[in-house]
């Protein structure tokens, strides 16, 4: 009480101080920024590099944005689950297979939780994984190229939300279903949900060398909603924790019906135990149908394979593998501290934050203190597993991250703030407002044994008056706080692409030295590559025409093509012969019903053109490549379908 009074007085006096000495100021944040000379802390001089990478998901944009911290500068939007005309992702022939699913070509998804790969509990900067919520998928982005190189669809899942979190050595990337569904899917009345719908938690193994993903097993759990998850680490390595809501198993009006129980659960899954069970032949192979899409850097081409079965495990068949920890009330975030001892359940409808103890959980299990069961899964006593409670820290707790110095930082959606509190004593240390309605927050390395506790990024759903208005639809935002001191300090607001749902960050030095500059021409194994101008040609096969074309500053070879006819299907296979850093070329032709190509040095990409009109049609380089970029152009002569115009191609025949 004394503390509250003290901090109230402190806050009041700060407010008074700011309002009295700066009449023009409207917000405390602005005054704070001026007062603390904050600009210097986020200023990265022209030509200098940021200290951290931040990979911020695009939410409903389906993509992943790459920012620098502390500047908040946007470097790249990596296309993942949505087509991107700028980069031809999902438009060119090479990457279309990346978006294949059991439902056909799905050009969009809702990307949520990026997580960086780890080795020995520390992030290693090799890959970022991210989940697609809507048509359940997990993607892997290679951080040497910053390109999506693999996407695996998750069968028996719906609303792939408690995903995509990696274990301490990236043994698994885990994907849990938010919506429970009939498994296998079938035609049945919705009202028969209870007891019949199931929730699948998928453990996707990651090949340590290539990162290739494969669903090792799916744990078929009761029909709750599995909301978020985090792996155990250190002592709790080998366990995975999932928050649940809707333990009521409602199928309608969930805002009321899923808020009935005083407590839902955090499901603790001993995946090592299940892995052992599976390795010894346990589990049932069930028929399934899901896409596995792999991009091969040597052919610059993706391939989609439909997989036809998946191994499922009934938790009742593996005694001691799954326990339910009662957690008030509809917990959202499920966050594990760097030591692996504390599991924070952010009960979004609860007044308090609940923290469970891994040690106490093990003791309760050893002492067989079981309170009951849900469909055969033992429920432990709330009091037996409880480490502590952060009393009334704010309204609507969602997510918690850690600074590695014994502090935790929790976002509160309703009261729109970040609250810093101490692990072990559970006392609130500081609170800072967010503008507005914060969801996730991110400390670089936050989901690991070794967070880099210098900054926290809060990701806001609503900005209202924070930026120049842009009509009814305004940007969402991220806010950067300095957390190196006792008190947090708001440094910067920056707008984001789509919804900044969650993020992962790491020191730039982990990634920068490994970032590829070019693709080597000699390693290009694209079946339609032309690795020198001598290899360029035009080949007709019926009404299909393949053009093997090259680019270099500042011409296409060939750049005059004749003998194409209306009704042809023309494949432009373009190889960029450049072998220098940052010399891409682009290309498109008038009337192409697809996007441009943007081809990196040494790469081959393909677009399809189906000319519908007779004439001579120009194509040109779409990426300003050199002083002679405007000269980088060519013509295709299109003759009537029944004409006999011979197939010819050339470059610079009458030069000199």
């Amino acid at each position, binding site marked *: 009480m004394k503390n509250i009074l003290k901090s109230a007085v402190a806050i009041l006096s700060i407010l008074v101080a700011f309002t009295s000495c700066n009449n023009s100021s409207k917000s405390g944040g602005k005054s704070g920024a001026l007062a603390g000379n904050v600009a210097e802390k986020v200023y990265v001089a022209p030509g200098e590099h940021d200290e951290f990478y931040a990979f911020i998901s695009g939410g409903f944009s389906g993509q992943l944005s790459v920012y620098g911290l502390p500047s908040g500068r946007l470097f790249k939007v990596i296309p993942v689950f949505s087509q991107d005309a700028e980069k031809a992702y999902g438009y060119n022939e090479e990457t279309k297979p990346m978006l294949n699913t059991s439902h056909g070509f799905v050009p969009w998804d809702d990307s949520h939780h990026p997580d960086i790969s780890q080795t020995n509990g520390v992030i290693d900067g090799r890959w970022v994984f991210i989940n697609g919520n809507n048509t359940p998928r997990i993607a892997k982005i290679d951080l040497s190229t910053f390109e999506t190189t693999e996407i695996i669809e998750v069968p028996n899942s719906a609303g792939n939300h408690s995903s995509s979190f990696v274990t301490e050595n990236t043994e698994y990337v885990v994907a849990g279903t938010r919506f429970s569904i009939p498994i296998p899917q079938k035609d049945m009345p919705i009202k028969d949900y209870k007891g019949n719908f199931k929730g699948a938690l998928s453990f996707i193994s990651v090949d340590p060398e290539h990162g290739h993903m494969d669903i090792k097993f799916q744990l078929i759990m009761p029909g709750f909603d599995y909301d978020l998850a985090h792996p155990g680490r250190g002592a709790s390595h080998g366990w995975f924790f999932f928050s649940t809501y809707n333990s009521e198993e409602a199928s309608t009006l969930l805002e009321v019906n899923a808020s009935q129980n005083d407590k839902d659960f955090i499901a603790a899954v001993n995946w090592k135990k299940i892995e052992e069970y599976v390795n010894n032949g346990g589990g049932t192979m069930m028929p399934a149908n899901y896409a596995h899409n792999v991009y091969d850097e040597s052919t610059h081409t993706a391939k989609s394979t439909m997989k036809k079965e998946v191994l499922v495990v009934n938790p009742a068949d593996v005694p001691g593998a799954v326990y339910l920890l009662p957690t008030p009330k509809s917990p959202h975030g499920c966050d594990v501290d760097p030591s692996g001892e504390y599991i924070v359940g952010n009960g979004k409808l609860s007044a308090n934050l609940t923290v469970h103890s891994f040690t106490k959980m093990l003791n309760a299990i050893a002492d067989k203190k079981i309170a009951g069961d849900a469909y055969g899964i033992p429920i432990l006593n709330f009091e037996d597993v409880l480490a502590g409670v952060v009393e009334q820290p704010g309204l609507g707790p969602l997510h918690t991250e850690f600074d590695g110095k014994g502090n935790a930082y929790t976002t509160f959606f309703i009261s729109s703030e970040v609250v810093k509190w101490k692990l072990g004593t559970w006392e609130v240390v500081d609170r800072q407002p967010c503008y507005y309605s914060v969801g996730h927050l991110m400390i670089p390395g936050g989901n690991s044994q070794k967070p880099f506790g210098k900054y926290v990024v809060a990701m806001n759903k609503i900005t209202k008056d924070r930026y120049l208005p842009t009509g009814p639809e305004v940007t969402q935002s991220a806010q950067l706080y300095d957390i190196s001191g006792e008190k947090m300090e708001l440094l910067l607001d920056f707008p984001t692409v789509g919804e900044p749902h969650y993020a992962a960050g790491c020191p730039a030095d982990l990634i920068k030295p490994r970032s590829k500059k*070019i693709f080597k*021409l*000699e390693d290009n194994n694209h079946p339609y590559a032309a*690795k*020198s*101008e*001598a290899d360029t040609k035009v080949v007709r096969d019926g009404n299909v025409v393949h053009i093997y074309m*090259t680019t*270099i*500053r*500042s*011409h296409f*070879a060939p750049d005059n093509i004749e003998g194409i006819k209306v009704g042809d299907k023309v494949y432009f296979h373009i190889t960029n*012969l*450049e*072998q*220098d850093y940052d*010399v891409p070329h682009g290309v498109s032709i008038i009337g192409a019903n697809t996007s441009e190509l943007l081809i990196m040095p040494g790469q081959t990409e393909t677009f399809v053109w189906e000319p519908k009109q007779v004439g001579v049609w120009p194509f040109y380089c779409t990426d300003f490549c*050199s*002083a*002679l970029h405007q000269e980088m152009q060519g013509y295709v002569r299109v003759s009537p379908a029944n004409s006999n115009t011979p197939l010819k191609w050339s470059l*610079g025949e009458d*030069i*000199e």
Partner: protein
Amino acid sequence: MKALLNILAILSIVLALSCGGKAEKKKPFSYEKQSTTETSTTVKSEKLPASKTVDLKNKGIGPISSITLDAEINQEMATHGADVFKKMCTACHRPDKKFIGPAPKGILERRTPEWVMNMILNPDEMTQNDPLARELLIEFNGSPMANQNLSEEDARAVLEYFRTLK
């Protein structure tokens, strides 16, 4: 003058339209067309174009400060160099005639071997700071010499191949 040109242009378009697209052989339009030989004589002074200038002292700017060529051409190296040249350079260079860039034929009669290798290995800096390379860039319409990221070994082999072009 400009107005006259415009009128001429419009007139020619009208003429073209009246022809109805029949592929008649039209008299090619020409306006102060430059040829490389003319450039050297008409553009200022008697100064030779950079592509013809002989400078056997300048070693250029880059990683190569000194190399010695054996009296005999190393055929094996030259063959490898020809292969590298074919793969990495022919998009802009023909061995014996001007293309996008100058022909390498006889280059060692005009340049030091170091300069040639530095031009291959360090073209960005060369075209910015080496006077001859800069003039070449202008002479060749600002078409940049692409850095194809050759290894020193490959660049050396290309140089050996150039020795065979006579």
